[in-house]
């Protein structure tokens, strides 16, 4: 199995992607700072601690990493006689490493920002985690979330690559359909919305426990990522080369 050269190639592209993600995260922090300063001047500010969206920006970039790179990587693997199984096997550690890098960089950015302004990430706010005391919990939950997002991106890339046009449309319009279903449901009492919310909050460790528990979310997201990786393999194992 040629896992190592495949992993090296994937990681090299992910490294470039990470540089762009860092720029986007810094830009998001600057934007929040500008909003913070303007609300301060206008007397609208209610807090002294900033909430930075760097973890959500990283999450978006994790999704994009899977979505944008999976197919080109697959083509290069095919060009070099790499089996689909080896290709996916190399993708798993590459995703884990990228997720770890994103987690670390998000954390460092918030730490650096905190030198000038007290700040937290959205994840910390949700789970009431302290930057210094709960660093491990922050790391594992964010890592799991990024791995999940990368795998979701890979799966979506496979859907785009392999599915028929109607199926492709159905896949990407499903979230929109869900959104309108929930709106309609909200007008009729919101039973579906409440059910989905309960499920989501429970699997993310935000309900049914004495305090928000990031480790439940870590477990859920890791299992979700594993499920997505399995689905990707099921699709990938019989996927032929498709060229535009």
């Amino acid at each position, binding site marked *: 199995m040629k896992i190592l050269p*495949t992993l090296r*190639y994937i990681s090299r592209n992910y490294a470039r992607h990470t540089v762009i993600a860092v720029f986007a995260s810094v830009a998001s922090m600057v934007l929040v700072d500008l909003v913070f300063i303007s609300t301060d001047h206008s007397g609208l500010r209610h807090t002294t601690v900033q909430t930075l969206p760097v973890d959500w920006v990283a999450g978006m970039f994790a999704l994009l990493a899977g979505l944008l790179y999976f197919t*080109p990587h697959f083509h290069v693997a095919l060009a070099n006689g*790499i*089996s689909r199984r080896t290709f996916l096997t190399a993708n798993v550690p590459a995703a884990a490493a990228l997720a770890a890098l994103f987690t670390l960089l998000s954390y460092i950015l918030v730490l650096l920002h905190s030198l000038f302004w007290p700040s937290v990430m959205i994840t910390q706010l949700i789970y009431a985690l302290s930057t210094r005391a709960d660093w491990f919990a922050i790391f594992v939950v964010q890592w799991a979330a990024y791995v999940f997002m990368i795998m979701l991106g890979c799966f979506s890339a496979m859907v785009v690559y392999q599915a028929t046009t109607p199926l492709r449309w159905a896949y990407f319009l499903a979230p929109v359909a869900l959104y309108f279903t929930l709106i309609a449901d909200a007008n009729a009492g919101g039973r579906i919305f409440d059910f989905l919310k309960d499920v989501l909050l429970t699997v993310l460790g935000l309900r049914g426990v004495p305090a928000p528990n990031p480790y439940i979310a870590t477990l859920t997201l890791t299992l979700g990522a594993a499920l997505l990786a399995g689905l990707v393999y099921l699709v990938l194992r019989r996927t032929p*080369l498709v*060229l535009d």
Partner: protein
Amino acid sequence: MSDIQIRHVSKSYGKTRALSDVSVALSDAKVYGLLGRNGAGKTTLLNILTNRVFADGGEIRIDGEPAVENDRAQGKIFYMTEQTLYPKRMRVRDVFDLTRGFYPAFDLDYARALAGRFQLRPEKRFGELSTGYLSIFKLVLTLASNAAVMIFDEPVLGLDANHRDLFYRELLARYQAAPNTVILSTHLIEEAAALLEEVIILKEGQVLLAKPVDEVLELAYVVSGSQENVERYAAGKRVIREEALGRYKAVTIYQRCTGADQALLARLGLDLSPARLQELFVSLTNDPQKVQ
């Protein structure tokens, strides 16, 4: 070693039958010509051999191992596809480095030197390469791969005569230095004919003929001379091509020329010459009858 066994391979795309029960064996250290008209199934066969697509039935073995999803078996093959599978923003030199990671025998120095001889600039990105230079890049990559099986699919697409000549000479030199299995899939049969040791001709997804070139050429011959005598000679024989100019006529006959035939030719004052591979190919692939 690089022995390839293709057994009863079939493939359909929707209602279109691309390959139908294709069986052929390729042995080590030979130059094969994979020939066929457009849509004959050449690229499909090569794509199946290299795991780009999957066969509906049959199997392929490389040195006794299944070719499907087998890194070791696939690592023996380098396939220069007509389509480029690398991202357009990638630089030529980066692909050289990348390929060395996947093919340990890849000769980076040779790739650079050969690129120089073709005036291919390694700092160029794919998106910037013309059709001809894209072909040059791909053939440089394949030649430098040092793979046990090198597959060239339309290698000289867009190349000028000088570059085509350089490629054929380089392929021959490389082959003589370290004989391996080379599969040339091309429409420019006349140019490649001198390199080929065996030909596999596909027609409508089936193997029409798979034989050493010498044997193939022995299967046919050209008779020319006065129209009347040529027609007299050709009566009852399997004529696959006819050309006439005034009272002069030439026919290609698809069957062995026996001693009796040669005596008759001499008596009728007709000229005998070997058939050319391209001529034979055109005749065979136009002929609706399958040749055994």
